[in-house]
């Protein structure tokens, strides 16, 4: 089992390709500039990443035009995206893909995702804890679904959805079933988001045509669990970038005639952060490798741990940069906003710990 905690050679190659693309196309200054533009998501970058490198179809079987890879490869992509706080809908697309893969009869849709023809997203609040996606805010007619009838009309509202703005297709949980909806048929209103590099939106459906995909939410829970696993790797990447940026800075910033990185107060905190990041790497790898009963435990551990580490790394990045780290013109705030938002996404650390307690038999009382 311990080898699963390492990176394979193909994974390192994939990482290099993504890193090259991002350093060429998404330096932080460009990411910052985009946050104030009308297009918060970078469509060109997503195209280059999604179809150029094949990140969109990573999970899609080869016979449907995808890479037939696993969450492990997706996690490597997420690490690099986390480092760059890149404004692309990779996580949302991955979640939708994982969901469609678990549903029958979605081959055509998966093929369109792999080719880049369409991008999909799942219409749940980004804060949803896996297994907790059941809060129903959308209703369906006719109800109950009639045998053989796959067309329905959906009405309702889903708030704070990630990666839905650039999506073409939305998978909407409603009244206990999952429906595919065309994005053009709904109203999406961009939300002023704490994380300006992953702008959420509120979705309004009003008698919107939906195609019944499946009855029941168990596939949705699994897909959100996969998303949470991959998010841990994104958090890992972000934490690594924060540490690297900070270490670089404290080596060159001089105060009182010495590099500030020579002061033991900062050194010890950076070393502690490094220890936690090294741990984040192990738990994040395990979360995308584990199967069976172990998977839910591994993902809860990874989310509980990596959420805190990413926030700590970003907070230390701001603090150790001093004044400059508190300005708009330094990337630290992009990391901070991403890290804090990610810690609230797909369940907070505290909720993952509570879930974990159930899984390992340590009840609260």
């Amino acid at each position, binding site marked *: 089992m311990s080898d699963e905690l390492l990176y394979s050679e193909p994974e390192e190659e994939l990482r290099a390709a993504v890193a090259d693309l991002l350093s060429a196309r998404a330096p932080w200054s460009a990411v910052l500039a985009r*946050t*104030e533009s009308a297009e918060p998501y970078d469509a060109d970058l997503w195209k280059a990443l999604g179809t150029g490198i094949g990140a969109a179809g990573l999970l899609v079987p080869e016979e449907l035009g995808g890479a037939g890879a696993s969450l492990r490869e997706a996690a490597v992509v997420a690490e690099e995206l986390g480092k760059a706080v890149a404004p692309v809908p990779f996580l949302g697309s991955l979640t939708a893909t994982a969901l469609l893969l678990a549903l029958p009869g979605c081959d055509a849709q998966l093929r369109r995702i792999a080719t880049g023809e369409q991008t999909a997203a799942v219409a749940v*609040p*980004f*804060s949803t804890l896996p297994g907790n996606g059941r809060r129903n805010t959308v209703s369906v007619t006719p109800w109950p679904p009639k045998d053989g009838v796959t067309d329905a009309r959906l009405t309702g509202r889903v*708030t*704070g959805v990630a990666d839905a703005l650039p999506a073409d297709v939305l998978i909407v949980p409603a009244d206990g079933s999952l429906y595919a909806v065309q994005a053009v048929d709904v109203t999406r209103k961009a*939300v*002023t*988001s*704490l*994380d*300006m590099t992953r702008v*959420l939106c509120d979705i309004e459906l009003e008698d919107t045509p939906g195609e019944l995909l499946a009855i029941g939410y168990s596939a949705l829970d699994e897909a959100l669990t996969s998303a949470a696993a991959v998010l841990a790797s994104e958090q890992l990447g972000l934490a690594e970038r924060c540490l690297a940026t900070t270490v670089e800075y404290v080596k060159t910033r*001089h*105060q*009182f*005639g*010495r590099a500030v990185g020579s*002061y033991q*107060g*900062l050194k010890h905190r950076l070393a502690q952060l490094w220890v936690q990041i090294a741990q984040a790497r192990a738990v994040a790898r395990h979360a995308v490798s584990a199967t069976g009963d172990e998977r839910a435990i591994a993902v809860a551990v990874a989310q509980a741990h990596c959420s805190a580490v990413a*926030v700590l790394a970003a*907070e230390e990045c*701001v*603090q150790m940069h*001093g*004044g*400059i*780290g*508190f*300005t*708009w*013109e330094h990337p*630290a*705030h992009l990391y*901070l*906003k991403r890290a*804090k*938002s990610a*810690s*609230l*996404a797909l369940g*907070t*650390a*505290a*909720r993952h*710990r*509570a879930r974990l307690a159930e899984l390992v038999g340590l009840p*609260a009382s």
Partner: protein
Amino acid sequence: MPPLTAQHVTTQHDLENQIRDFLAAHDPSTVDRTDFLRARFDAGLAWLHYPPGLGGQSLSRDLQPVVEQAFAAAGAPDNDPRRIGIGLGMAAPTILAYGTEAQQERWLRPLWCGEEVWCQLFSEPGAGSDLAALATRAVPDGDDWIVTGQKVWTSMAHEARWAILVARTDPDAPKHSGLSYFVLDMTAPGVEVRPLRQITGEAEFNEVFLTDVRVPDAHRLGAVGDGWRVAQTTLMNERVAIGGGSAPRETGMIGVLADTWRTRPEVREPALHDRLMTLWVAAEAARLTAMRLSAQLAAGQPGPEGSAAKYAFATLNQQLSGLELELLGEEGLRYDDWTMRRPDVVDFVGRSPGYRYLRAKGNSIEGGTSEILLNIIAERVLGLPGEIRTDKDVAWKDLPR
């Protein structure tokens, strides 16, 4: 507030009489605001501990509340102390301590009356905690100095008429001895003020670019080369406001959070209850400590204990605002407004949860980083040895940067 002494009590009666007479002569409801404030200054009822002729009567600071309460009760206009905080808190004590008679007469009255706003030009991009490393140059030229350099984290620079400035007058001297202290006219040619946007989206502060700005030597405070010592007077007065004083329970960020928990049962996360209560206790401990400090220092100068209060305040604000977002979950993913704005006042606990979280990050940087505050406590309170210093006796120009 400590109990007044017998001496105080006598003076207090006298003061109350003075104020009654003053108000009889200057009806706040009819006299123009500026005229009223000027008259109050001239009557020695502005800042009591300042000398006669400069707005005071050389009385104890403890009596100031007597005056403030009496004027407030009479509905008199105040000098909007938030707006002129830097002038009142930092420039004025320095001018009082080091200014010539002419300088004091020129600057203190319009300063106290709020007619002239002041700002502070100390920090530089390359000299944050290590202020004495600053690089802004002042070169003598006849009866003037020519000042060139870049200053940062300057609040009110865009509204200020005057600035207190520390600049390097001798780069060949060790860094602490090559500095001098000036008053700079913010309307002079060569002064450029640019807003400095911060992570919250707004700009409370400015960058100030000084390009060959002429400062008359008559606007120098203290001797040439004595700027570091003069600046200490200014800085001693800086770390007072934050974290000190008496406030009711659940003031500030803890109040916001407790209110959220009480009024919105749906955000109560039982797993986080103990953390909430731990922070509640920490906030209450900080509050009682600030009260104790006020009682101790009622008549004295702020000591290193003020550093502890500021440190605790910053840490607590960051933990509380972080927990608030965690409790709010989905709501915490939203922000109120990223538009670049110039706020009139800064309210750490205002606006939205996201704003509070981000703004609190500045609390451990502005006005002395938490690291520097801990150094101060370690060295000045506990008497632990300082770091080995390699920068104290070297010519400034030869220091690593």
